[in-house]
């Protein structure tokens, strides 16, 4: 059937792209899918450490692109799950080591073998971002309910639409229900109204994300946390299931549009 390539990007750094990529990969794999995730950063490694696979790196993306190893040799298999692999980033200073065509070729080689290829895009709109988006069938934009994150997400969405590299789907990450109730955080509705693209998930602020990252155990492995549950829901929606959005506590008041959040999700 062939894999779907999803690039996870955001514009702004620090909104949770890498955490999202790692956890979606885990959630998809836990659901029985074959998943490869690719760290699209150039010069900095992040995905490996969030997944807890940092000790097992032998070859990386640049080694593959430059022919120093075969693709399979660079794929680190996650022993916790049946079919989850990571291709780590290179720690090279050469920004032009990887090109958009390289990424497309790499994904084409992987497509017949797996169900999902997740690419963790670096922040910004420069070369690393362009490399990451080049092979994408689907672009997942991660944002936080916060002014500069939303602004940068809008920029990215505009770029993706202008270049017809879509479709783009939104994940609102680190929503804090207590702050929302106090009127001190944008609601998911607010963000959706501004960005106006289709939502595939809302991930609540959850301290388990940090503790699990500390341990190198993505939070989705533990079914009990709210964030973990959210990632699993998103994975299910990515596979075409209609999953209702979680009931995170909402702002009080007449104008709260519950309907948008309670509507079943899915593609």
């Amino acid at each position, binding site marked *: 059937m062939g894999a779907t390539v999803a690039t996870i990007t955001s514009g702004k750094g620090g909104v949770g792209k890498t955490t999202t990529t790692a956890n979606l990969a885990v959630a998809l794999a836990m659901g029985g899918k074959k998943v490869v995730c690719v760290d699209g950063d150039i010069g900095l490694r992040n995905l490996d450490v969030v997944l807890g696979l940092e000790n097992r790196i032998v070859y990386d993306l640049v080694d593959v692109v430059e022919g120093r190893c075969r693709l399979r040799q660079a794929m680190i298999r996650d022993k916790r799950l049946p079919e989850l692999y990571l291709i780590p980033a290179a720690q090279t200073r050469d*920004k*032009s080591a990887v*090109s*958009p*065509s*390289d990424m497309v070729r790499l994904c084409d080689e992987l497509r017949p073998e797996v169900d999902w290829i997740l690419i963790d895009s670096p922040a910004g*709109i*420069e*070369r690393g971002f*362009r*490399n990451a988006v*080049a092979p994408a069938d689907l672009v997942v934009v991660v944002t936080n309910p916060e002014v500069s994150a939303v602004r940068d997400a809008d920029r990215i969405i*505009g*770029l993706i639409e*202008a*270049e*017809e*590299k879509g479709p783009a789907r939104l994940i609102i990450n680190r929503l804090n229900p207590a702050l929302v109730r106090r009127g001190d955080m944008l609601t998911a509705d607010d963000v959706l109204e501004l960005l106006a693209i289709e939502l595939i998930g809302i991930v609540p602020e959850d301290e388990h994300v940090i503790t699990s990252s500390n341990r190198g155990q993505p939070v989705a492995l533990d079914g009990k946390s709210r964030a973990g549950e959210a990632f699993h829901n998103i994975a299910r929606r990515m596979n075409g299931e209609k999953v209702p959005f979680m009931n995170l506590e909402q702002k009080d008041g007449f104008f709260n549009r519950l309907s948008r959040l309670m509507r079943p999700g899915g593609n």
Partner: protein
Amino acid sequence: MVNERRQNVQIKGVKDGLLVTLGEGAWADLEAALLQHVQDRAAFFKGARVALDVGNHVLRAVEMGALRDKLSDYGITLWAVISGSPVTEQTARVLGLATRISTPRPERAIRPIDTQLEGENAIFVQRTLRSGYKVAHKGHIIVLGDVNPGAEVIAGGSVVVWGRLKGLVHAGADGDESAIVCALDLEPMQLRIAGLVAVAPRRRGKAEPEMARILNGQVVAEPWKPARGK
């Protein structure tokens, strides 16, 4: 074939890297010529920072993004796209590319002509006027080139544009209602003769040379036929 390429793709070293200037023609041909050029000199171009001057070409994001990625494949970093088209400029901005380079803009070559014709004098502007340029003269103004949207031509006399007139034009600026405006393609953002202002209605059909003048208190544009004239 080699000659064509040389015409279409010109390379110059500038302070911030390379400036590649593309000529006229269909975008697909130009892009192919450029990529061929790069491919032939791959070692020279690898790692280069390139600013691309696309002239008046109107480029969509898909086209510009695709070219940027293809240049990336050769190790070229496209960092700026320079153009006379506001649409192309906006596209470049959306893509995070610069639209100006530090090379100073060429001097506006307004050469007054030492010709007196029945007591009238005219200046001859031999260039396309890009957005932001303004030419003002108390006699006639003749432009050999386009007048782009955002450019202004203000004349005490008449204005003749041997090209596309898409900017602002004011003929008879001192009040002379007998002044005329001629252009091969008359689509001005705003046209004034003496004290009257007009905005061109949307064109139907192909562009043809036209002359605008005041007739019965109104600005009227007529197709230019050689036999016509004051």
